[in-house]
């Protein structure tokens, strides 16, 4: 069932140092990704329900943890970056943060070990949503001046206008959503590949020793992979949170720039 195991079973642990599947793409061929995505949404809904169903004025540990995460988004991101108008966007920013974070954390859940944010569809969808809000709010707030200000920031000499206009147009309207997408996507893909290869290899080498297929000395390669894998695992805990935070923060920054013209 698990493509990682199927692919790695073919590896020659007596000669290779890492059990790489025949095709690294196999690491990403999970037909159950939509199920994981749905599971993520259900987990978020349940956490919110149980934390805030009957919120207490003096919160317990669980409620306090969820509250502090919500405050992180509503205060440190929405209010601090966008300002008082940011309250309107809090539900969207909260959804971004929790959806991405839970998606990232799925990498670390035993039995799933797959971050659905490492699938192009998810970061792309979310980045395009932010982009649509950015453009719609900009037009709503500033009319067509929004585009003019966007491609010709105030103070650009006339002679440079065509060049600056082209650069700004491409960087703001085209590259921005893709940079947002790729930052999240690439981080999670890299994390997933590293964890899958390191912990997968560790497992095969150590099982090889137990099965008597390879010597203990050679099997110690597996122990080394295991140590490195655990370190990367802990690093991914940080990365998962950080990438969710960065994506949400940048979305807020983009929304802010469409609400408040630069001049």
């Amino acid at each position, binding site marked *: 069932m698990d493509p990682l195991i199927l692919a790695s079973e073919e590896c020659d642990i007596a000669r290779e140092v890492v059990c790489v599947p025949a095709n690294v793409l196999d690491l990403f061929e999970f037909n159950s990704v939509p199920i994981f*995505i749905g599971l993520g949404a259900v987990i978020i809904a349940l956490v919110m329900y149980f934390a805030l169903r009957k*919120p207490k004025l003096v919160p317990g540990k669980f409620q306090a943890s969820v*509250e502090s995460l919500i405050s992180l988004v509503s205060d440190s991101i929405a209010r601090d970056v966008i300002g008082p108008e940011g309250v309107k966007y809090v539900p969207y920013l909260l959804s971004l943060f929790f959806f991405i974070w839970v998606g990232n954390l799925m990498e670390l859940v035993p039995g799933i070990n797959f971050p659905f944010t490492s699938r192009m569809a998810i970061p792309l969808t979310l980045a395009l949503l932010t982009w649509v809000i950015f453009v719609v709010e900009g037009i709503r707030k500033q009319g067509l001046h929004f585009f003019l200000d966007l491609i010709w920031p105030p103070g650009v000499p006339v002679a440079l206008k065509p060049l600056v206009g082209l650069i700004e147009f491409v960087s703001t309207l085209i590259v921005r959503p893709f940079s947002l997408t790729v930052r999240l996507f690439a981080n999670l893909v890299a994390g997933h590949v590293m964890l899958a290869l390191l912990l997968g290899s560790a497992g095969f080498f150590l099982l090889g020793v137990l099965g008597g297929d390879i010597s203990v000395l050679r099997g110690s390669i597996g122990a080394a992979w295991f140590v490195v894998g655990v370190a990367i695992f802990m690093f991914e805990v940080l990365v998962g949170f950080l990438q969710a935070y960065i994506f949400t923060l940048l979305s807020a920054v983009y929304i802010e720039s469409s609400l408040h013209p630069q001049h």
Partner: protein
Amino acid sequence: MIADVLILAEEATESSGIDLLIPTVPELVGGVLAFAVVFFVMWKFAWPQMQQLLDNRQKAIAGQIQEAEAIKAEAQSLLDDYRQQVAGAKSEANQIVEAARSQADTVKADLIAKAQTEAQGIVGKAREDASSEKARAMTEARQEVANLSIDLAEKVVGNSLDRAAQKSLVDNYLASLEGA
């Protein structure tokens, strides 16, 4: 070793790596639906609950602070009352002690005056008694002297004398002695 992994991974990806970058329809649909659910939960439930909670907490804290201030003010006024009462009680006690002291002084002075009067009375009466006793003794002595003188004279004369005339003679003599 890690470089080997990367090269291997790269080689493997190059074969059909573009697949990794193309979103699949089930994932797009699943992603949009799941995000819509999450957004709905945040929009209609989590964020309003959170705002309500923060409002309630703010009200509760403000209420508690007000309550505490009211209680403090009440305690302060009670403390002032008690202090006033204690001060009143102290001055009252002082007055009572002072009054008792002055009353005692009056009683003492009265008693002393009364005792002195009584003593003077007793001394006066004693003096009176003594002088009346003395007068009585003098009268009796005078009587006795007169009688004795007459008796003596009768014995000398050998005849009874006119007792009344003799007595007045002796009395006159004694009276003249007292007058001298």
